């Protein structure tokens, strides 16, 4: 269990930058999620931590010591791959024992710890099977056991849940979190699924195009996104982003002028407002409902108004409005997030309301 740091790490593939000057540090026992779309460099970061890829520039530190030149097999890092990467020619027990094979652990002792770890991930009854005889969820547990048996400095999970069905994913999420807490192992989860990241991790590192967009607690990322990307990537249904002009009079979106509070230097901005914060309560901006989707617990509407197309949620199972119906939309200043359109950063101390 180690403290892990990346200092100004860059990875080039030829002329393309897969990872561009990222720095981050993880406390011992912390569970962090690296969240981003495919191709954002999150898997490359993971493989650099594991020692499979060498960073082009920058340093990787375990407990303060530089490990750039330490080979993968000496780093004592456990990985659960997206494909699980179980060894198909070996039984489950042999798979779990594989990492101990090269550590010269006495056989009896190795088997004892394999059985303990199998107990922990609840696969004790499967030890004699071959991976091909296991379901996806069971393979996942075997992969986890194999990664954990070597008491890793760092546990890396590469999209571990993406091959499981929805129900299983839900239970594995809690299961992985339970095991991680029980062992106190420093863990990095790589995922493109924001729900996975938000429910499992203590801290989310949101990546895009090889750079870190924002890092922080799940709540911080949701309520105070620093960039337009972070705002749009996190949250489902996605945040409304309305382009407009900030002037001395207020925020002008199309023909509509919204009241603002705070500093009002003229500039192009984007107004971000989450669907659950838009309300159709009879006053505000007139809009026409163009679609209504029942999501089960609530209904998602899309309304067309002078602001553009706006999504909003109502907490009713049966749709309250039909397509074509006229409503009035409003939202609170406290929930509005304004981004500088040019610098792509959040503007502090300004808010708008309707």
């Amino acid at each position, binding site marked *: 269990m180690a403290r892990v740091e990346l200092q100004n790490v860059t990875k080039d593939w030829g002329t393309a930058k897969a990872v561009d000057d990222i720095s981050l540090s993880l406390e011992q026992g912390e569970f962090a999620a690296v969240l981003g779309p495919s191709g954002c460099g999150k898997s490359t970061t993971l493989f650099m931590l*594991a020692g499979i890829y060498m960073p082009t520039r920058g340093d990787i530190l375990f407990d303060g010591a530089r490990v750039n030149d330490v080979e993968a*097999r000496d780093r004592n890092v456990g990985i659960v791959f*997206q494909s699980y990467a179980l*060894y198909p*020619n070996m039984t489950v027990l042999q798979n779990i024992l594989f990492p101990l094979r090269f*550590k010269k652990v006495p056989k009896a002792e190795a088997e004892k710890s394999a059985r303990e770890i199998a107990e922990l991930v609840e696969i004790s009854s499967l030890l004699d099977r071959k991976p091909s005889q296991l379901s996806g969820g069971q393979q996942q547990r075997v992969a986890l056991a194999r990664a954990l048996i070597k008491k890793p400095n760092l546990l890396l999970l590469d999209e571990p849940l993406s091959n499981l069905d929805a129900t299983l994913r839900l239970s594995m999420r809690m299961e992985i979190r339970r095991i991680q807490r029980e062992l106190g192992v420093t863990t990095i989860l790589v995922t493109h699924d924001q729900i996975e990241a938000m429910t499992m991790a203590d801290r989310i590192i949101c990546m895009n195009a090889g750079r870190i967009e924002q890092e922080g607690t799940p709540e911080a990322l949701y309520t105070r996104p620093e960039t337009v990307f972070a705002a749009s990537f996190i949250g489902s249904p996605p945040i409304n982003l309305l382009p407009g002009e900030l002037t001395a009079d207020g925020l002008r979106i199309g023909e509509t002028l919204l009241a603002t509070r705070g500093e009002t230097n003229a500039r192009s901005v984007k107004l971000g407002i989450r669907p659950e914060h838009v309300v159709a309560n009879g006053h505000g901006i007139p809009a026409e409902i163009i679609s209504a989707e029942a999501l089960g617990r609530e209904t998602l509407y899309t309304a067309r108004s002078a602001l553009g197309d706006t999504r909003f949620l109502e907490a009713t199972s049966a749709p309250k409005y039909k397509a074509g119906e006229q409503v009035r939309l409003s939202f609170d200043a406290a929930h509005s997030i304004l981004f500088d359109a040019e610098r792509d950063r959040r503007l502090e101390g300004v808010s708008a309301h309707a």
Partner: protein
Amino acid sequence: MSGLQRIARPAAASPDWSRLAVRARRLGALRRWSLVGFLTLVSIPILLPFFWVVVISFSARTGGVDSAVLWRACAVLVPCVLGYAAAHVLFPARQHRMVSAVVATAVAVAGLWLLVGSDLHLDNYRFLVSPNLVEEIRGAATAGGQFPWVWNAFFNSLAVAATSMAAKVTIATLAGYYLSRFAFRGRSLFLQSLLILEVFHPWMLTIPIFLVIFWVGLLNTLSAPILVLTVIDLPFFIFIMKGFFDAVPWDIEMSAMTDGATRRQAFWHVVLPQAYGGIIAISVLGFIRGWEEYVFVTALRTGNSYWVMSTYLYYVAEDVMGVDYGLVAAVSVFYMLPSLLLYLFLQKYLTQLTLGGVKG
């Protein structure tokens, strides 16, 4: 609108479904059985020579073959084999197949014993036990020890086949892995030139190969055919092995290396076991190519420096014995037995060869 309705609606009276079903079943059965009949018919001329060789080897006496024995024996054997083939297709269960195999064998043995039993003998297989076959036939003076005992040729053939097989498998496996996993300058050129080598038939190179072998001083040694056969098969075998390694996911190898294995250990413990199918396939192919080789074992010796099974068979048939069909047939049976056994026991790996190719 009315026109559309006319097209979309079925005819007023619904057709006689059961009659249509009966007709379709009959047609299907007819098609199936005519196909089976046709395939059986064309397989007879292919199968017959094998039965003939076996029957001749056990029945012919010096001077000639009694064709009545031949026909009677084949009249027993062919129906038995076809009967077993039909049973093999019809019964998927292992024990049913075993029972039908036993029945077919019993019928064959009983039939042979009844029809040709008195004509069968083992005399033609005397070459297996008598070291001086030629002297027995022609008298001690003529042969002068030129013609070897069959076991001499047998073990030479075994040496050629096994050694070249071992070399081919080792080199093709390592090269296939390297080509599959490592990027290096000239990799695609190397792969293309491997394919180009397949364009030239090796026989076209017989004379240059002879000269090279002569200059390096390996003429008239068994190392010559071993080397040449290895080199001839390598390009194709490397390609096959590359295909098998391409099908092994990267993740598994990376996983092994983070689990504490070196690259070599990862290859040995994790990657190689998944290419066993390919290794067995090229082993069988490689062995049989060496076992059956005739051209290069003949071309690379200038006298009777070494004998292998193919040259032994050739001399039995052409040079020494004249027309002792019984002996020729017996040697042929002895010669083909190892290849046949290999094919029988390892054919499931040979069919994987195409699979590996498709995956790769």
